[in-house]
């Protein structure tokens, strides 16, 4: 009997400006300006609630704590992820854009570098986001996990290119220049489809 088709939604309650964390057992999840706000789904219609829930679950299963911040002044994945890493007590952060592209970053790395990159948003399902959260938490524990296996589907590129560009532009419109990152509390609600 498969799990009942529950559709979850998430709202992000702002709790104040994002501060540097001091606890080494903390991973920061840095969200792009339009994530779970202007947009509610990824490029393949995976609900942002599910993306966030699986990232948090991957981190929790490893016995590590998580903090969610909303970045407002940029839509660039590397910038968002590196900012998250600078705020994170362990120095490890996961950055994610509305369309789904994601990255694991670390505070001492050059901004344009990363620990793991997931560029093809159409290929990222709930299971991949769970593993991204888990690997980020394992780096925070000083472990060296195998990188998350991702399919490389050359076919996906053309089909989704147009939609990706559109979502990218829309996300840009949501940028609020020179407004600092805020800490947010995700509140999940169950809505039976």
């Amino acid at each position, binding site marked *: *009997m*498969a*799990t*009942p088709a*529950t559709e979850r939604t998430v709202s992000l309650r702002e709790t104040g400006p994002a501060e540097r964390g001091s606890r080494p057992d903390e991973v920061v999840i840095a969200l792009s300006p339009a994530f779970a706000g202007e947009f509610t789904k990824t490029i393949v219609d995976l609900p942002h609630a599910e993306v966030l829930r699986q990232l948090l*679950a991957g981190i*929790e*299963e*490893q*016995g590590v704590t998580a903090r969610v911040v909303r970045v407002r002044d940029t839509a660039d994945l590397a910038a968002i992820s590196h900012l998250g890493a600078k705020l994170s007590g362990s120095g490890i952060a996961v950055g994610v854009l509305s369309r789904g592209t994601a990255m694991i970053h*670390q505070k*001492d*790395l*050059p901004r344009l*570098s*990363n*620990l793991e990159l997931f560029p093809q948003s159409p290929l990222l399902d709930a299971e991949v986001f769970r593993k991204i959260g*888990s690997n980020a938490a394992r*780096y925070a524990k*000083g*472990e*060296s996990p195998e990188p998350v296996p991702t399919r490389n589907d050359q076919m996906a590129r053309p089909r989704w290119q147009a939609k990706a560009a559109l979502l990218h532009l829309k996300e840009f419109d949501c940028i609020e220049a020179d407004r600092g990152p805020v800490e947010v509390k995700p509140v999940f609600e169950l809505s039976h489809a």
Partner: protein
Amino acid sequence: MDTRLVVGVDVGNSTTEACLARVGPDGAVTYLGTALKHTTGVKGTPENADGAVAAVREVLARAGATVGELHTVLLNEATPVISGLAMETITETIITESTMIGHNPATPGGEGLGVGVTVPIGELLGDGRDSERPVIVVVPHGWDFDDVAATLNSAVRDGVDVVAAVLAGDDAVLVTNRLEKRIPVVDEVAAVEKVPVGMLAAVEVAPPGRTIRTLSNSYGLATVFALDPAQTRQVSPVARALTGNRSAVVIRTPTGDVTDRLIPAGVLELRGAGKTLRVEVDAGADAIMDTLARAQPVDDVHGEPGTHVGGMLAQVRDTMTDVTGQPASEIAIHDVLAVDTIVPAEVRGGLAGEVALEHAVALAAMVSTDRSRMQAVADQVAAELGSSAGVGGVEGAMAVRGALTTPGVDRPVAVIDLGGGSTDAALLSASGETTAVHVAGAGELVTKLIASELALDDREVAENVKRYPLGKVESFYHLRHEDGTVEFVDEPLPPHVFARVVVMTPDGLVPVPTRHTLDAVRRVRREAKRRVFCVNAVRALRQVAPQGNLRALDFVVLLGGSALDFEIPDMIADALAPHGIVCGTGNIHGSEGPRNAVASGLVDAYAEEPG
């Protein structure tokens, strides 16, 4: 005779070395330089000429001399000793009737022991539910952790005595964090659908950093499943297999079991000294080597046809046939080195990809083909250089002569050439005669043992682990060496080494793809070197020492590529120290270290009686 310019050339399995010298009328030798090139083609075949010529040209160029001035080239009579390698697993662990889950996942949930009947989560609620007996809930793939927790909580509220759970996904911590009643949960059971349903089972999870106490104790199993003594004896291998785990599941199946089967690897037949001795491969390395010692000198070695070891030696003979061109039947194996090792292998019948450390035996075998082919190489070198060239002397004798140029060495002196395929020893007695032997097993066997024990697919990584010390990258700005000291770097280290065990090679950090700790990798590296080079050093010296008595030896000089290793020479010196032997790495002409011994020896031999 006026002074003559000569070059000694030593063609080895992997390296070809040259030594240029001026020999005066009175036989006095002035060394002018050395050179080292990769051997071209297989040792003892005409293809070697290119490498030899290249080495001669380089050593001449370095000394500013021309080919024209060259009087003669002296090549080593390499008794081509060719080694082959083979490895066979001799134990196999099998779980029958899914009686045990022992994969020890990284993040189990909860703590303690739960004993009850296995029930699929689908049948937990509704009227069919079982609210008399304690139950262990089995959760298949596809269930979300929130739904699993909700279902278990409502079952408990309905009076079902849920005592433990077994999950397909990596959700144990997520589920236990959401349960009202704290229970032990084992997760990441890939083949969870094979867990027998309606059977009495036990799940145990120890606190962080601890190991289980009940399911790893035969009498713990007897208490949990109320077993009689005969049943307890039958399940005791399950307790042994679960020792050291942090979590485990045992299911009471009628005849379910875990066996550590010995794979019939076959019998080795050792012919020598007029006898034929037989020894089971799975008796282990010591038994094999003891039997070998009783059949010295060995004429030939065969493996029982149709068995693993039969296949192993056939494989070695095949490589020899392409190398020597001789038919397989003519190939005589004159020495073998057996080494016990462990190979991580998946457990047959495991439900969650369990891996067990199986025992294996690695065999290095050595063939000596007597036909000398170095003269053919010499002729070709002479042709290409337009100077005379010939065979100057046998490898062993030349090596020990070269060793004498090491400061502090005197006759009687023994050398051990720590090469890639074989380990060669030679003794130059006070009266000047030389005895030389070759034993199977050297650098390549060490690399193979490291690769198999650390499950490294890439042979290049295994070679690096062998050659250089280890480190652990603890942050992007510092790493800890294997001796515990910390080193800081100015530029952040590359991401692919972050938090990894690395090899400190001259061209940078090479990550070792293993989940072992630095100390565990270090132990595997040193053990492999000890079991090959310390064993072979003593074994080879015994064959050259007067009456096989090591105490009769004075000076031992270590030569060859593996003598450049940062720890092998110390290990061999420690192994020989109790016998009162002065053992150290050679230093040819006081400057070349352990390289160039044979090439230098060829020049000295020529200088004594210019053939």
